[in-house]
């Protein structure tokens, strides 16, 4: 390939074919859509020959983990069909955590070890069983040591998994109020719905568990 000496194009000397191949490789890799021949030729330096470079590039990826494939009239990289099984990462459908769950989680993170009663006191509404269950299931919280107070209630603490998910090294590294404010996260406007006396409602309409049946699910 290097023997090409196109004397007629000395003014705009085309890069060596190996360089053209590199350029096409980069373009096709970064493009959001398959790239057509016309576009390749338009983007390569004058005098380049995308068709020829593509032949080399195609060969280079033969048998590799990714291959260069022709999609209609354009080119794209695709995972080798036989490797589908390593690409079968479970499709994880992610949903936003509910506000009740986020608040409960935040209280546990900031006040751990914390009892259910304390969470309810801070939130001003009772904590539904579903919310706690969900957080336990996500493995973001777990049961902590029982509190040495009457009734010896169980406490909740956050887990390693939690720290991992939120990119924290320890729960103590959570920013404080001052820092939240400094980072502009603290909206200072009062929320009309949350003025005094708004407490008491159920956080998500799961009405069969008032604060009194908290023992039911945690007592052995």
């Amino acid at each position, binding site marked *: 390939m290097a023997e090409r000496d196109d004397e007629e194009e000395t003014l705009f000397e085309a890069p060596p074919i190996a360089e053209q191949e590199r350029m096409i490789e980069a373009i096709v890799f*970064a493009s959001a859509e398959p790239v057509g021949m016309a576009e390749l030729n338009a983007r390569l330096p004058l005098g380049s020959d995308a068709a020829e470079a593509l032949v080399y590039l195609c060969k280079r990826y033969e048998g590799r983990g990714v291959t260069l494939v022709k999609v209609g009239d354009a080119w794209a990289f695709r995972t080798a069909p036989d490797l589908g099984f390593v690409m079968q990462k479970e499709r*994880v459908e992610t949903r936003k955590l509910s506000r009740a769950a986020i608040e409960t989680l935040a209280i546990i993170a*900031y006040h751990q070890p914390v009892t259910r009663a304390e969470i309810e006191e*801070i939130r001003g509404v009772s904590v539904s069983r579903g919310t706690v269950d969900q957080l336990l299931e996500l493995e973001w919280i777990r049961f902590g040591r029982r509190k040495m107070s009457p009734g010896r209630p169980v406490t909740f603490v956050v887990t390693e998994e939690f720290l991992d998910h939120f990119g924290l090294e320890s729960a103590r590294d959570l920013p404080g109020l001052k820092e939240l404010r400094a980072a502009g996260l603290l909206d200072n406007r009062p929320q009309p719905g949350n003025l005094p006396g708004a407490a008491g409602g159920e956080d998500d309409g799961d009405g069969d568990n008032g604060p009194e049946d908290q023992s039911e699910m945690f007592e052995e």
Partner: protein
Amino acid sequence: MADPIIDTVSPIDARRAAEALIVDVDGFEGPLDLLLTLSRTQKVDLRGVSILALSEQYLGFIDRAKSLRIELAADYLVMAAWLAFLKSRLLLPSEPGDEGPSGEELAAHLAFQLERLQAMRERAAQIMGRDQKGRDFFARGVPENIARTRRTTYTATLLDLMQGYARLRTRDDFRPYVMDRDRVLTLEQALDRMRPLIGFAGGWTDLSSYLPEGWEADPGLRRSATAATFAASLELAREGRIELRQAETYAPIQIRRKDSHG
């Protein structure tokens, strides 16, 4: 311009200088930045910069700004005052009784600060001058996430978490929940109150006599105190410290210390 009189009285070039200064002061990011810029006029390596000369330049700059009635931010004035102090320390021989760091130490630290800021600026420029993703090099344009199985998981970001917490805490600014306790005797409080007292309860005494003073009159307070005291007595009984008895339903509850009767 703060004062129109200056415009009419001062010569044109003074006015121009004044305007330039305003622009410049705005252009500086604080006194340290101004000092760093001034130090360049000395045309020496920052390690060899004369802090004394620099202090004089800075003070001169501030004086000029003042005479032109340019409003200076407080930290520029604080720095001016400090540099005036430093200047006097550097010029006067230190006396044996002098407290605090010497002028040389203070000057050395200022030089260090200037050098460090300069170094950070140079590194910042170097970082920004590097090849950047999305400008010089690129990631895969069509990430393939072939997936067959589906699993639902929930996610939240640290921002969500912090905002959630901030929301609760801001609400507390308006509904300070601790204040609610004014009219509530907590179990802990009742326990704290009873623990030292039960030592004296050799004989059977009414539980109602353990209510704290001032809690009997108001029905609400009395209810809370009675409930807490009763719960505390159950706790003490569980710990084996006291015994409880009640003659009949609704009769007064009585307690006594347990160890007195083995």
